[in-house]
């Protein structure tokens, strides 16, 4: 699973979304979503609050079944595959939920150790070392024995991140990783994401509103527009800022100031 990063030019698709329609009951959120997330990309999902970004993420990680359309991982359609294949696909994902979603009955160390215990047969001592390392990576060294209820919202976010990275997954999904973090920590997080993507070739899918982060890390993106209920732009965010013909996209990327700075 830990492929080196040899072929960066000839990009391989990691996730292909075809004709995806998302709905809650009869309430259709988005339809006709078509995009490809390439291996090693840092892929940004953009859009206003409540437009369905978190929901799209849930579809991408196999938590919600598409109303229509397919999601392919290496040409395997998640929802047409058997349970074993689904299992092995999930094993390659690491997910940071919008609310952190730490298991409240476990300490931070136990939270991060959980995936390791589940999927590896490492001895407990090594798991402990790995856990401490992952927690230190997100600036939470020393908080191993704390329970989620004893730390702040931003710290929960970071602990969730450590858990998402526990198994060194192929694809990392982040739902608003920097919400609730101060600018410096947010910046460190961006650096960490770039580091992960460059050193291990990890594919990263990020839902975020932070423009600074979008431009700093994004190599590809989609923009969801709730008014027309579909994606209205796709591509490198820096290019979108310069070239997108859609005023809504430009507006979003310039914080509503409309004009592109040259």
């Amino acid at each position: 699973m830990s492929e080196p990063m040899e072929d960066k030019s000839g990009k391989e698709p990691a996730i292909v979304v075809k004709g995806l329609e998302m709905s809650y009951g009869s309430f259709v959120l988005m339809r006709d979503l078509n995009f490809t997330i390439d291996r090693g990309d840092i892929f940004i999902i953009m859009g206003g609050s409540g437009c369905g970004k978190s929901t799209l993420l849930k579809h991408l990680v196999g938590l919600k079944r598409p109303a229509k359309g397919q999601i392919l991982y290496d040409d395997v359609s998640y929802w047409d595959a058997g349970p074993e294949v689904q299992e092995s696909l999930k094993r390659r994902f690491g997910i940071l939920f919008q609310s952190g979603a730490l298991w409240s009955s476990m300490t931070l160390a136990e939270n991060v150790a959980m995936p390791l215990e589940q999927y590896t047969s490492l001895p407990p001592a090594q798991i402990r070392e790995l856990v401490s390392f992952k927690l230190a990576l997100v600036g939470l060294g020393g908080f191993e024995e704390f329970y989620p209820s004893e730390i702040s919202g931003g710290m929960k976010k970071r602990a969730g991140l450590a858990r998402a990275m526990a198994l060194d997954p192929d694809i990392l999904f982040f739902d608003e990783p920097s919400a609730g973090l101060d600018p410096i920590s947010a910046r460190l997080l961006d650096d960490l994401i770039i580091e992960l993507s460059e050193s291990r070739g990890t594919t990263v899918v990020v839902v975020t509103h932070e423009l600074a982060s979008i431009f700093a890390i994004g190599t590809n993106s989609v923009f969801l527009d709730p008014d027309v209920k579909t994606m209205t732009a796709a591509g490198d965010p820096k290019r979108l800022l310069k070239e997108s013909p859609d005023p809504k996209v430009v507006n979003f990327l310039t914080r509503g100031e409309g004009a592109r700075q040259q």
Partner: protein
Amino acid sequence: MATSEFKIDKTQDGALLALAGEWKLGSAIPAPDGVLAGAVVKGQRLAFETGNLGEWDSRLLVFLAKIFEVCRRDGIDVDDSGLPAGVRKLMHLASPENQRSGVTHGGARQPFLVRVADSALGQFKGFREVVDFIGAAMLAFLKMLRGKADFRRLDLIVTIQETGAQALPIVTLISLLVGMILAFVAAIQLKMFGAQIYVADVVGIGMVRVMGAIMTGIIMSGRTGAAFAAQLGTMQVNEEIDALETLGLSPVEFLVLPRMLALMVMMPLLCVYADLMGVLGGMIVGVGMLDLGVAEYYQQSKAAVHLTYFWIGLFHSFVFGILVAISGCLRGMQCERSASAVGYAATSAVVTGIVCIVVATLIITLSCQVLGI
């Protein structure tokens, strides 16, 4: 300070609404309809004058919103350039053009027959969910018997402690009292025949065969079933269950199984304890009120209560343990994502639990009747 005032004047192309004084929350917001009546008609323009406007807050904004709404309805142009810049900005933010288009919640009201069909389908779906859940719980249990289920032993131990040892005080109190009540009721009747000693039979058989199990079942449903529902419901709200699923862990194995096991073990034990407490309660009444001797009461109880009754009682409580755990966990897993949904899950876990207990008692009692035990 002057209170709020407004005055409407005709101009050549419409009307001018002059706002003056202090517009602050505290008194009623003027109704918009009368304000414009007659002064301005479709196609004309409404302007504003605010030279004498004092301090203002949401009261002014809501009043203006209503006026704007009337104008939009009647096709009157609004020229808001006369309003203070702050007011203009806030009105712009709240204007309908700035809200999400096409937001519907459940859509328009459906015709009666459609609603009936929807609700019938909803019931059916709810029933399927229950069956699915029970199936999943059974599979998890079988998996555990083969030693393959994924759950933390620590969770099991903690749950056993919470559902067992910590429930002892309330079980003691309730079963002691129920034993005493049974004894009182029986004593009044039996005293008429001078057959007080048979109070021991009534209390002993009643408690051991069914009442001990039912009382613990109901206590545990209120205490533990509700707690299970609230715990799992909160985990649902915090996306903790999603997080488990994405790790490939089955929430049923990981969360439901230890809770079910804990109650399967602890419920019969609590039931035995409740039986003893009930008999003790009966004895207190018998010795204290009916002048029976302790040894006499004990001997009579011992003779009355067959071992079969004891096993029947235990069987009841074993079944109740499963029912309470399943209804608590089911309601928790079905919980939606809000605080009120967690409250609803807890309530409905207790209701489901108690209904299941009563129905199960009926079925077991009838079966015993048929089998002649």
